[in-house]
C-alpha cells in the first residue's frame, strides 16, 4: 500500500517508514507561526514554562489582523508580541510598514518550501499546502507547545483526491474552482481530511490560484489542502527567495489510498458566487436571476489579495467608475504586492474608479475594521468566509466571489460578471 503526499510528509517528520490514517504521531515542525490575535497565548505558554523558543529560525510572528492597531485592546495584544520579539531578538517579525497578511507574506518571502511541515495558530494555515507542504492550523496552546519543543502531534488524516480536468473558462480562477468544489461537497465535506488537488487543470494553474484553493480547504472542513510541487511551483519558489533545489519534493504513490476520489470537469465551471451565510452556497453567475444590490465591495485578504488578483481587478475597473453609494475597498495583502501594484499603475486605475486603498491588513475580512458592515448592508468580497456577522453587523449579508466579479459588481452596483460591465 502506498502513501499520499500528506502521509509521506507526516511519516518523514515523525521518523516513521509508514503512517496510517487515524494514527496519532508526534512530529518535528519546520515552521511555527502565530498572529497578533493568537500569539499572546502561545507566548504565555513559553514564558510560564520559562523556556526559549526551540529554534528562532523556525518561528515567525506576524501582526496582521488588527494592525496598524485599531484600538487600545489590539494595541496591547501587539505590544505583548513586540515585547517578546525584542526580548528574544526574533528575526522573523514584521512591523507595520513591512507586514502583510501571514498567508500571503510567508510564501512570498520564501518561508514555505515543498516537503515542509508547517503549523500556524490560524485556521487558514492550510494555504501553504499549495507549494507541496503539509500545513495545518491549530490552537494557540498547540502553537505554544510547538514554540517550546519544535514538535506537534497529529492525527494522520485520510485524503480525498480531487481531479480537475479541462480548460478554465474566461474569468475563472482558483477561487471559482474551490467555491464550486465546496458547493459540491459542503462545508463539512472534507472534515478532518486532507484535500489533494490534482489533474491537468491544476498542473497548468498558477501558484497564486493554487494558494487560493488551498486557503479555502478549511471552508470544506479540511485539515489541509495540498498540491504536489511541480515546475510551476519551482519557478515561483526561485522568484521568491528560495534557493534552487532547496526543497523536498514528495509525490503521492500510484497505489495510495483515498477515502474518496472526486472528478470535476473544469470546462463546466463559470465564475462562482457564494450566497450568505455559508461558502457552500455557491452558484454560477448565470444561475443568479435576481438583482442583488450591494453597498460594499472588498478586494483583499489571504484568499485573493495577491498581485494577480489586483491585476485582474484593474483590468475590469480600467476607465470605469464605482456605482454611486457603493464603497470599493482594495487592500493589497503585502507590502511587496502594494509596491508592485503601485509601479504597474494599478493604483491610478483604482483611485480613478473611486476605490479606497489601504495598507496591508486583514481588516474587513473578519469585520475587524477598515470597512465594517452596518445592519442590513450587503457586501461582495474576495475573502473566504460569509458567516453571519463575519464582516460586521450580524444583520449584514456577505457574498463571496473572485476579484473580477467583485470589481464588476462594484461598477454595476449589484452582483455582476465582468462581461456585463466591460462592453
Amino acid at each position, binding site marked *: 500500500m502506498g502513501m499520499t503526499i500528506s502521509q509521506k510528509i507526516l511519516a518523514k517528520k515523525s521518523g516513521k517508514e509508514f503512517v496510517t490514517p*487515524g*494514527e*496519532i*504521531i*508526534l512530529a518535528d515542525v519546520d515552521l511555527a507561526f502565530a498572529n497578533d490575535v493568537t500569539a499572546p497565548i502561545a507566548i504565555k*505558554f513559553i514564558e*510560564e*514554562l520559562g*523556556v526559549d523558543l526551540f529554534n528562532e529560525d523556525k518561528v515567525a510572528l506576524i501582526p496582521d489582523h488588527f494592525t496598524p492597531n485599531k484600538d487600545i485592546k489590539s494595541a496591547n495584544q501587539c505590544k505583548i508580541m513586540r515585547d517578546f520579539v525584542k526580548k528574544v531578538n526574533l528575526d522573523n517579525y514584521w512591523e507595520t510598514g513591512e507586514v502583510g497578511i501571514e498567508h500571503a507574506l510567508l510564501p512570498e518571502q520564501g518561508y514555505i518550501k515543498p516537503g515542509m511541515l508547517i503549523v500556524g495558530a490560524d485556521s487558514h494555515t492550510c494555504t501553504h499546502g499549495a507549494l507541496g507542504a503539509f500545513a495545518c492550523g*491549530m*490552537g494557540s*496552546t*498547540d502553537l*505554544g*507547545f510547538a514554540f*517550546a*519543543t519544535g*514538535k506537534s*502531534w497529529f*492525527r494522520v488524516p485520510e485524503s480525498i483526491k480531487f481531479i480537475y480536468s479541462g480548460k478554465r473558462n474566461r474569468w475563472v480562477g482558483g477561487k471559482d474552482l474551490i467555491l464550486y468544489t465546496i458547493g459540491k461537497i459542503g462545508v463539512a465535506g472534507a*472534515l*478532518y481530511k486532507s484535500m489533494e488537488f490534482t489533474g491537468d487543470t491544476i498542473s497548468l494553474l498558477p501558484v497564486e490560484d493554487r494558494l487560493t484553493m488551498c486557503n479555502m480547504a478549511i471552508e470544506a*472542513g479540511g*485539515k489541509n489542502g495540498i498540491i504536489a510541487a511541480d515546475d510551476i511551483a519551482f519557478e515561483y519558489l526561485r522568484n521568491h527567495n528560495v534557493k534552487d533545489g532547496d526543497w523536498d519534493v514528495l509525490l503521492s504513490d500510484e497505489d495510495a489510498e483515498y477515502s474518496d476520489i472526486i472528478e470535476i470537469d473544469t470546462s463546466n465551471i463559470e465564475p462562482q458566487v457564494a450566497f450568505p451565510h455559508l461558502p457552500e452556497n455557491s452558484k454560477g453567475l448565470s444561475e443568479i436571476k435576481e438583482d442583488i444590490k450591494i453597498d460594499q465591495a472588498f478586494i483583499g485578504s489571504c484568499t485573493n489579495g495577491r498581485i494577480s488578483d489586483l491585476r485582474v481587478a484593474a483590468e475590469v475597473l480600467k476607465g470605469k467608475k464605482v456605482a454611486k453609494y457603493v464603497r470599493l475597498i482594495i487592500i493589497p495583502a503585502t507590502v511587496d504586492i502594494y509596491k508592485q501594484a503601485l509601479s504597474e499603475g494599478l493604483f491610478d486605475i483604482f483611485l480613478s474608479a473611486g476605490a479606497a486603498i489601504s495598507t496591508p491588513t486583514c481588516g474587513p475580512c473578519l469585520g475587524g475594521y477598515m470597512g465594517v458592515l452596518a445592519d442590513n448592508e450587503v457586501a461582495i468580497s474576495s475573502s473566504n468566509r460569509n458567516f453571519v456577522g463575519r464582516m460586521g453587523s450580524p444583520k449584514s449579508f456577505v457574498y463571496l466571489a473572485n476579484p473580477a466579479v467583485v470589481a464588476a459588481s462594484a461598477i454595476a452596483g449589484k452582483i455582476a460578471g465582468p462581461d456585463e460591465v466591460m462592453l
Partner: protein
Amino acid sequence: MKLRGKVWIFGDNIDTDVIIPARYLNTSDESELAKHCMEDVDPEFTHKITKGDIIVAGYNFGSGSSREHAPIAIKASGISCVIAKSFARIFYRSSFNMGLPIFESEDAVNGIKEGDEIEVDADTGTIKNIISGAIYHSNPIPEFMQELIAAGGLFNYAKKIIKS
C-alpha cells in the same frame, strides 16, 4: 494504560454547550467546572457517576465552540475516557491537550449499552465489554501520547520533555 468503568450513553452531536454550559465559563476552576458537566442533558449526571466511568456517544461529540473547558470538565468530573463514533476536530485536539483520553469506534458505540462495564486498553486500542464479552477495536494511543495524558496535558508534557 487500561481504563475500566461503567458506561453512560449519549447520542449524536453532543456539543460543548451541553458538556459545559456557557453560563459557567466565568471560572476555569476544574472542580467548579466538574460540578456542571453534562448538566443540560442530564442534571443528575455528576451525582450518578463513579470515578473511572466512561462516556459512550454517537457522532460529532464535542462540536460547537472551541472552549477547552469542555474536556477539562469531563476529566475533572472523574470520567476516565470518552468513546464516540466521531469527534469534532477541535474537541479532539483539546481533549488530548488537556489530558483526557478519547477513542473512536463505531462498532463499540453500536454494541455497548448503558450500564455495561467495559475495559479499554490504550496500548492496543481494544475495547472489551466485561458483561457480554464482546471485543471492539479503536486506534491505539501511542506511547508519547500516553505520557502526555499521564503528565496531565500538553503544558506539563512540554515541561517534561524540555527537562529530559
